[in-house]
């Protein structure tokens, strides 16, 4: 498959805790194509976070293989891993993880700072992204002055600014009420429509139902991997731009 963006083959991972080894991933195979929007579901302890961490090059795996955009990701130096993360992957977290003393614009611009883009230029680009997400007038506010939904939108803007191939969203709506969750999902879908693959880890069925494919993990192996027939890729037009 040429257009596979993430390919995982018989992935194994265990955590050693003292004398106990906890086998978390027991041979996971996964193939996510470019432009796909996939959800990974599973109860806690099923290994979904571990899988996401490995895909996000935040963690190493023990056996198997992982190809990101056709490049084999193996044990590598932190510097190289950081470069890969910066270039290929955007992260969206449940708890937003914005830097508290930087305003919205600076938070969004941060990934470009690590690419050594000049301050003026990266702030300009950050403003563009904030504009797209309807947060232009909040650019100079600190995270503490923003609502949950706004914070998550800032985080999405931050994940987008380095033009990644994949966005990894770990419970992106976990801390939001249903209305805001819906907004965030709309945004993610819109992002997906531009061709960026999105992987959402969630345990909410309503969220998973909005993705093209639902992968269920149980006890470290893939239980089911089915195409979601109810998926509709039409974005509720105009919702985004009219907000606030």
């Amino acid at each position, binding site marked *: 498959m040429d257009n596979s963006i993430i390919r995982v083959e018989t992935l194994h991972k265990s955590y050693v805790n003292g004398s106990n080894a906890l086998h978390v991933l027991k041979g996971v195979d996964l193939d996510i194509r470019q432009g796909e929007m996939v959800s990974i579901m599973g109860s806690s302890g099923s290994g979904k976070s571990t899988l996401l961490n490995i895909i996000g090059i935040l963690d190493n795996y023990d056996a198997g293989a992982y190809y990101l955009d056709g490049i084999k990701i193996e044990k590598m130096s932190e510097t190289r891993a950081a470069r890969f993360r910066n270039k290929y992957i955007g*992260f969206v977290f449940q708890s937003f993880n914005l830097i508290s003393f930087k305003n919205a614009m600076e938070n969004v611009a941060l990934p470009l700072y690590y690419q050594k883009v000049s301050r003026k230029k990266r702030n300009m680009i950050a403003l563009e992204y904030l504009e797209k997400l309807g947060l232009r007038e909040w650019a100079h506010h600190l995270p503490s002055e923003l609502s949950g939904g706004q914070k998550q939108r800032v985080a999405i803007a931050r994940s987008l600014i380095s033009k990644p191939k994949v966005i990894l969203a770990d419970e992106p709506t976990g801390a939001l009420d249903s209305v805001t969750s819906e907004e965030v999902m709309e945004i993610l879908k819109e992002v997906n429509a531009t061709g960026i693959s999105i992987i959402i880890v969630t345990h909410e069925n309503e969220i998973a139902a909005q993705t093209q494919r639902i992968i269920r993990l149980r006890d470290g192996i893939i239980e089911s991997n089915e195409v979601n027939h109810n998926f509709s890729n039409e974005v509720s037009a105009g919702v985004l731009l009219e907000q606030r």
Partner: protein
Amino acid sequence: MFDKDRWQEIFIAIKQNKLRSVLTAFGVFWGIFMLVVMTGSGNGLVNGVTQGTANFASNSAFMWTQNTTKPYKGFRQGRWWNFNNRDMEIIRDQVPGVDVIAPRLQGWDVSQGENVHRGLRSGSFTVNGDYPAYNLIDPSEMIHGRFINEMDIHLRRKVCIIGERVYEVMFERGEDPVGQYMKVSGVYFQVVGVFRTLNPNIQLGSNKSESIYVPFTTMQQVYNYGDRVHYFGFTAKDGHSVAETAEQVMAVLKNNHSVAPDDNDAIGHFNVEEMVRTMTYLFLGINMLIWIVGIGTLIAGAVGISNIMVVVVKERTKEIGIQRAIGARPWTIVSQILTESVFLTTLAGFMGLSLGTLVLHGVDTALTHAQASMPADEQVFFTNPEIGVTMAVASLIILIITGLIAGLIPAQKAVRIKPIEALRHE
């Protein structure tokens, strides 16, 4: 280097914990402050002592006779003896290591009571008989006129040169003393100069500013000293050690006067070279002590900084995790922590350096004022407490290195944080 994002983080970190930052920085501030003040004071001591002795010939020694302590060649022990003119000639002939030799007469018996008169003025001053060579060992500068010269010696001229204090007592302020006559212990001498010693911290028997020097030969004749030499100073030639030369000189003298060769107490002597060496080691010791204490204090301060940086890293674990997740390289994090540590250290140290210099300057000013109001011949053992530019630059470099070392452990800790663990850190 100047990167707004990096400095923003540093300032935020410092501002959020003002008290903590100040207390931490105080350790380093105090370390450098102590180092500067102590080094400055040490320098003040060295300056004070060397300023009063620096011009004294450091390759010189002095000798005088003492009672013999051993019977020898039919002479009893406890015999009193004297050096004489012949000794000086023999030393010149037989001891090749001697460069200049300056015999002296110390006129104890002519220096009693009001021994000096001029018109209605009178005073009590010490009289010394000297050769021109004495000025090569214990140099003076001439305020008026000239030093004793070879013609004075040769012709046994009744001329004299006088110390500053003698001039003050015996002459009108501003009066030209050269050519004037003074009666010194009953004999008239013509004043040919006024000298000011360059080594006020070394006094040989009497206060030099209250002394009158007359030509050696004149003094022997006028005051009935015959061919006696009370004591003499000499310098060693380059390449000869003073101690060895002194041994040879003493051997010659003992031989001349039938003093037992192993009678070490028959000749008193004073080796300036050794004294200088002792002083040098003393100063070296003081300096080492200062640096040990200063560096020790500084290390204590650095440990404080290191400690607090570990806390800072711990507090920022999550932030660091986020930064790592969105592409910060380990080096970015390390340099961030190091910059913060170096910044804190250097800032604190710079303040310590400034305050220390200020304190030294204050002391210096106070000392200068105090000295101005002191009598001129007061001995001074503390002048110009200061640190040089080298010292300032060195301490700044030490600070930066200290900061780097202090930041190293925390920075390593920060890098070891795994992004996932940091992100779980709620």
